[in-house]
């Protein structure tokens, strides 16, 4: 108990230290919100395994340490050349770069944005259009839901702010790089992203979270995605943090009538990772698709936690999560679909498949349905297992050696998710980086 109080005092004093320097520090409503969020954090603390939603993810390793929010760097920490490792070859895109939670304008490319599109950092948006941001920010936040979200609201520094007017189609994708440069343990960044698309508008957002050095830092992200009627967003999240980083993310999404939200979360990095996604299907014909792939080894722990609320009739939701686990890795999938009383004709499907490749890997899965309407189509399926011996035998009987046969099957298993991404450059990028990892450096072409 005392230790917990000390930790809370630590965040309070860290907050006092930074307060005036945080974005929107002079805007009264922002100040009030930050204070209120810090009070909520102090009241609830970090979640524990006794919270049903965190049953399989022990955040004690985070709660026991003290993380200090990264201060604004005195000078540019990175040069353009440093980005090469994180950019996607062949992808023609707008680019935003955040280093340790703050925008690095000299690294951004935001040329040729169409009229009606506002793309930039949240901190700048707060300076330029506080009233506009006030209407949007915090509407889908989960500050009451868990301590991490509250902490993010109290400390949020910067992140992407993507706003499109009605009917605007942003043809080129926006690639956002969130990079951490800390080389010592105990540094926290609190990125905050805000996406608001007007009626019938369209955008593709790709987020990359990566660390340049191995350090036990904390990345605590919160994102809010507000879609207008008929709007479409394809949202990629590529998590490639360092092997020692704690990455906690929460995304709230509102999908009204006719709108479509497609998300793809690919987790390859991080020590302890939590991806929370909460989607509100709130109108006729609203659609949501969540795909996930996690490829884990060592002592990695990745928890995908999704809640989809079907509030109105005729909504469609699809979830497709797959994982490959080696070493002592542990994966958690927790998917909840709630069909509210009036949401008739809802069509929801939920799938989670896990491949355990080692003695010590562990997969925990909870696909959950809460249904309060009778005329619905809901199904879920989950499996945990290893490679199919029949398939292995089949390949071996065709003169493919066992090692190559295994690699091929693993590749096919993972590629099921990658194949669902619509951007070709991202697909090839992932195929290359992930399969290299999966197949321990071998190339698929060489196997056949």
């Amino acid at each position, binding site marked *: 108990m005392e230790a917990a109080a000390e930790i809370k005092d630590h965040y309070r004093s860290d907050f006092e230290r930074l307060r005036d320097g945080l974005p929107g520090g002079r805007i009264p409503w922002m100040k009030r919100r930050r204070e209120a969020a810090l009070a909520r954090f102090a009241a609830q603390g970090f979640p524990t395994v006794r919270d049903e939603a965190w049953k399989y993810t022990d955040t004690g390793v985070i709660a026991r340490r003290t993380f200090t929010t990264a201060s604004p760097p005195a000078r540019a920490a990175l040069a353009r050349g440093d980005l090469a490792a994180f950019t996607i070859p062949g992808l023609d895109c707008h680019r935003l770069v955040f280093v340790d939670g703050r925008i690095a304008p000299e690294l951004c490319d935001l040329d040729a944005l169409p009229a009606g599109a506002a793309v930039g950092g949240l901190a700048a948006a707060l300076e330029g259009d506080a009233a506009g941001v006030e209407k949007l920010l915090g509407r889908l936040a989960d500050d009451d839901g868990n301590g991490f979200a509250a902490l993010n609201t109290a400390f949020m520094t910067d992140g992407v702010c993507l706003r499109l007017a009605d009917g605007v189609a942003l043809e080129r994708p926006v690639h956002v790089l969130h990079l951490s440069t800390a080389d010592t343990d105990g540094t926290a960044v609190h990125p905050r992203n805000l996406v608001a698309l007007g009626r019938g508008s369209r955008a593709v957002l790709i987020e990359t979270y990566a660390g340049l050095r191995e350090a036990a830092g904390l990345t605590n992200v919160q994102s809010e995605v507000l879609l207008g009627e008929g709007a479409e967003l394809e949202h990629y999240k590529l998590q490639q943090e360092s092997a020692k980083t704690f990455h906690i993310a929460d995304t709230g999404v509102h999908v009204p009538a006719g709108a479509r939200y497609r998300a793809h979360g690919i987790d390859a990095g991080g020590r302890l990772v939590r991806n929370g996604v909460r989607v509100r299907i709130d109108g006729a014909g609203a659609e949501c698709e969540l795909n996930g792939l996690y490829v884990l080894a060592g002592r990695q722990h990745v928890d995908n936690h999704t809640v989809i609320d079907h509030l109105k009739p005729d909504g469609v939701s699809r979830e497709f999560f797959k994982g490959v686990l080696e070493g002592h890795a542990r994966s958690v999938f927790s998917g909840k679909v709630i069909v509210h009383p009036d949401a008739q004709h809802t069509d929801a499907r939920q799938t989670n498949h896990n491949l355990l490749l080692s003695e010590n890997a562990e997969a925990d*899965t909870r696909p959950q*349905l809460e*249904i*309060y309407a*009778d005329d619905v189509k809901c199904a879920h*399926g989950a*499996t945990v297992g290893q490679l199919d011996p029949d398939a292995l035998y089949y390949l071996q009987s065709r003169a493919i050696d066992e090692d190559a046969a295994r690699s091929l099957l693993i590749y096919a298993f993972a590629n099921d998710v990658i194949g669902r991404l619509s951007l070709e450059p991202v697909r090839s990028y992932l195929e290359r980086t992930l399969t290299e990892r999966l197949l321990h450096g071998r190339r698929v072409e060489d196997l056949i």
Partner: protein
Amino acid sequence: MASGTQNLDELIGKEYEHGFVTELEADTVPPGLDEDVIRAISAKKGEPEFMLEWRLKAYRHWTTMREPAWAHVHYPPVDFQAISYYSAPKAKGEGPKSLDEVDPKLLETYNKLGIPLKEQEMLAGVAVDAVFDSVSVATTFKDKLGALGIIFCSFSEAVRNHPELVRKYLGSVVPYTDNFYASLNSAVFSDGSFVYVPKGVRCPMELSTYFRINAQNTGQFERTLIVADEGAYVSYLEGCTAPQRDENQLHAAVVELVALKDAQIKYSTVQNWYPGDEEGRGGIYNFVTKRGACRGENAKISWTQVETGSAITWKYPSVLLEGDNAVGEFYSVALTNNLQQADTGTKMIHIGRNTRSTIISKGISAGRGQNAYRGLVKVLKGAEDARNYTQCDSLLIGHRCGAHTFPYIEVKNPSAKVEHEATTSKISDDQLYYCMQRGISAEDAVSMIVNGFCKEVFKELPMEFAVEAQKLLGISLEGSVG
């Protein structure tokens, strides 16, 4: 098939058939719970010291616990100090030696329920350990079982006559620290059934017990312990009804099963406690802990349940698959109508190698009923080649009910194969239309479809239960369509 078409409203409005109260003088402990009440219960039952100690340890642990809130059910808080923890039909001198000596009023109650003991004794070949409130009043077929060395008696009798067995197995599957309601039960349990089947013996008949809640404000805290020694087999049936009440009644039972090497236990339940009226008034709170342990190689435990009653059901019959090649099975039909709530399912814990488990759960929600399946399949590190197959199907009837599925799957061994499937559906207009076109009334069609939906579970029930279960579903459901 029922012969005629009954009016829908008549069916919906059907009163609970078994709602009546037998006027009996009950020997009741005043409401409230403290150590003195526990000492009093233990003294009344003439228990040995070790039982009292165990009860007190359980009570002390219980006082440190909080009521669980994770289940998907809602109800006003239970005042545990307002419950009377012991109620027994007043004994007239010595205990009854035969059915003739049993209080005729009691026998009448059972007659109204359609389970006349004498008839059962003669016709069904079922040995009944009838529990009226808290104390067993009649036990039949004891001699026949005794010849085979099978012990089938009330729990208090077992404590007196077979303390070594009770001491060895009591709490070995559900420890007194297990959960809030199990701890409460351990502290105050009044009576229940005890079965011991010796090595290599196959119990020649289905063992059965009927539970009744009678005296007002009396919690029912049954404790059942079944031990099947190496190579033994036993099939146990449990069924219950309760009289109509406006006040909620708490039922917190504990059932422990122990199957040693090569032993098999089949435990079947038909539960139709009073579910409350259409507005959700009254009805039983059924908070039960049931667990079996497969303690040796090739042991098998099979749970089959048909849950149609109770205002709230909170029940997860589980199997600990400790021995290699052990098998666990769970077949369940849970039905909720009106304002009933059910949060039920199972836990299959795979510990030994090559252990297998099957879970088939059928949930039916009608009216404003809420039906949740909550199940855990856990494969521990040493459980090489463990295998689980789970299927959860929900059927929704009406647009104000709910069907929920909360499976938990935890796998720590890569050779395990775990599969979970779930579907949710409703009885489609096309299906109904097809049947009605062929001259089958709407209710009959629904009953037919529902029975088809539950077939996989019903076929696991012993014959006499299967019939009762189908009838129960008919009564509880037919009226809710339209």
